[in-house]
């Protein structure tokens, strides 16, 4: 039954869309139903899904993907400054420019494989970060980050006769369609992008192209002797994932028009690697799950303090409440890093395939529990096997 659902694209898309778009409702009990965090879930979900197309399918571990995110953000902000406050051109330009950078960096880095590839991408990323922070300040505004100003030219807006009189205008989608990208509008724009991004990823996973990428991961030498020129495949995957990162960066800037160099630091690149591994490398949903969990920790766990813990454990008797607060408090607030570190370790020790494997195990267990299942498998199962749902 589950298998059947998973092998049908429209059904997957339907469920996925429903889950994503209803996130403001079902995330309420978790205290994560406010626009900014929902936006971050969607945007970093896009970033991780794109990264997974490279890392998950080809096995090439890039340590510099935050560069493309940062470039996407800078491009989008420049588009707001020079062209128009409409987000559509900004996002498209962000993807194009990131794609071009990915093409160049990927072309050079993919001359090597394994750890040598990883270090090449890392080196490019660190150079981009250092330069954005210092020498390229005229373009990036250094540490403060690139911001909008009332005096920006906005050529296209000016041509359309949109005058700005008071303060900085807000980003929008064709002015009237969506007037401002803040709040839930921002989330729904990001969510729609996420759904499209996921759909494309799903198609790639289930296409001959995607299978070839997985074959490269499995045995690249064999691919070459089977008649495939593997480098263009890898480069295509690299550029696609770079454009996903550019899209994520463009969206970040669309919702909050500020771009800073720290977005490109190696820790930011490392974060998407961790998201992907945590959720499950090479799985469809895993990277998104990983992104959500890490962002949840960063935003919710870091904000818990003793008084809020007291509220949470309110239902307990006074003594127990005190005890629980004492036990839990080192792991929240300023201790959220500690919890994150422990989660990484626990997940990888007990679930080699990330959280998705945990879920698979759970489904398997439930199935066995109810005596469901059986081994009938359709052609589609066989073809899509190995992508681990």
């Amino acid at each position, binding site marked *: 039954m589950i298998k059947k659902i998973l092998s049908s694209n429209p059904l997957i898309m339907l469920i996925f869309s429903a889950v994503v778009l209803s996130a403001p409702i079902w995330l309420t009990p978790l205290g994560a139903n406010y626009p900014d965090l929902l936006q971050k879930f969607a945007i970093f979900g896009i970033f991780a899904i794109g990264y997974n197309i490279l890392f998950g399918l080809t096995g090439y571990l890039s340590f510099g993907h935050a560069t493309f995110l940062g470039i996407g953000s800078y491009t989008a902000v420049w588009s707001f400054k020079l062209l128009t406050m409409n987000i559509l051109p900004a996002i498209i330009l962000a993807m194009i420019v990131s794609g071009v950078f990915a093409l160049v960096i990927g072309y050079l880095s993919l001359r090597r494989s394994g750890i040598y590839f990883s270090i090449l991408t890392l080196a490019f990323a660190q150079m981009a970060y250092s330069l954005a922070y210092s020498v390229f300040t005229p373009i990036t505004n250094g540490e403060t980050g690139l911001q909008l100003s009332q005096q920006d030219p906005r050529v296209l807006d000016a041509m359309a006769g949109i005058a700005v009189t008071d303060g900085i205008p807000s980003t929008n989608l064709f002015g009237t369609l969506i007037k401002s990208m803040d709040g839930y509008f921002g989330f729904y724009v990001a969510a729609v992008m996420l759904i499209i991004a996921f759909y*494309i990823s799903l*198609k*790639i996973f*289930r*296409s*001959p*192209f*995607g*299978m*070839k990428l*997985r*074959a490269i*991961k*499995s*045995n690249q*030498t*064999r*691919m*070459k*002797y*089977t*008649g*495939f*020129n*593997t480098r*263009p*495949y890898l480069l*295509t995957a690299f550029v*696609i994932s770079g454009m996903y990162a550019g899209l994520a960066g463009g969206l970040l800037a669309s919702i909050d028009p500020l771009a800073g160099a720290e977005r490109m630091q190696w820790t930011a690149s490392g974060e998407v690697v961790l998201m992907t591994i945590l959720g499950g490398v090479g799985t469809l949903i895993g990277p998104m799950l990983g992104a959500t969990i890490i962002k949840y920790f960063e935003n919710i766990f870091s904000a818990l303090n003793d008084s809020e813990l007291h509220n949470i454990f309110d239902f307990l008797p006074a003594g127990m409440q005190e005890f629980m607060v004492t036990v839990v408090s080192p792991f929240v607030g300023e201790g959220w890093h500690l919890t994150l570190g422990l989660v990484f370790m626990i997940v990888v020790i007990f679930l080699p395939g990330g959280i998705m494997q945990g879920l698979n195990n759970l489904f398997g267990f439930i199935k066995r529990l109810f005596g469901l299942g059986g081994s009938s*498998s359709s*052609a*589609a*199962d*066989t*073809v*899509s*096997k*190995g992508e681990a749902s």
Partner: protein
Amino acid sequence: MSNILEISGVNKTFGGLHALSDVNLQIEEGETHAIIGPNGAGKSTLLNCCIGRLIPDSGSVTFDGNNMIGMAPHDINHAGMVRIFQTPEIFPDLTLLQNMMIPALAKRDGTFKFNPFKSLVGEKAILEEAHATLADFELDKFHDQLGGSISRGDKRRLELAMGIIQHPKLLLLDEPTAGMARHDTNRTIELLKSERMSNMTKVIIEHDMHVVFSLADRISVLVRGHIITTGTPEEIKNDPKVKEAYLGESEDE
């Protein structure tokens, strides 16, 4: 009959070691040609020089009228020369069916094709051929298992099937039965003699004389980088030079 593969004057040294010296070899279209020789004679090196894994120091490799030296492995594959490896080179993380689809797609798509929106399940012709070929090799019952999970003998047959599905003009087999039990070996011989494969031009490197003499139309003997002789199985059997070079080796098998 015309020569499909011509190797002439090929030299290859590793450091000071002369792995191949002045090797000349002609493979005729339609024949099954075995290359035998003791361990370290340079048999695998010779194959590697043909498929672009190694570049010879000098000499030429002409396949189907085209020079192969310096060509990338994937282009050589598309020229029609396909190699089956000694240690099975399959895709351990893909299912058997997918293992078969990859070479079939290579044949159809060429060295690179970007088709991310085509559905895999929609590739009817490719799927059918993959299933059929798997069935020919008695592997279809495993079609949804991962390549890494089947037995070694099955893996080698899978690799053979992966070569066949590309309909190569020339199939290079590197010890197709090494390490197989007698039963599996016989099955492989039958497969290679089957209707589907008997007319295919093949070069076989083999230790097992039983296999060699059951299959080969002609045999070349490679010793310390030299081809010492080429001839029909009968000629080779009675050649004193071969006996001298092979003393002890063939008796073991």
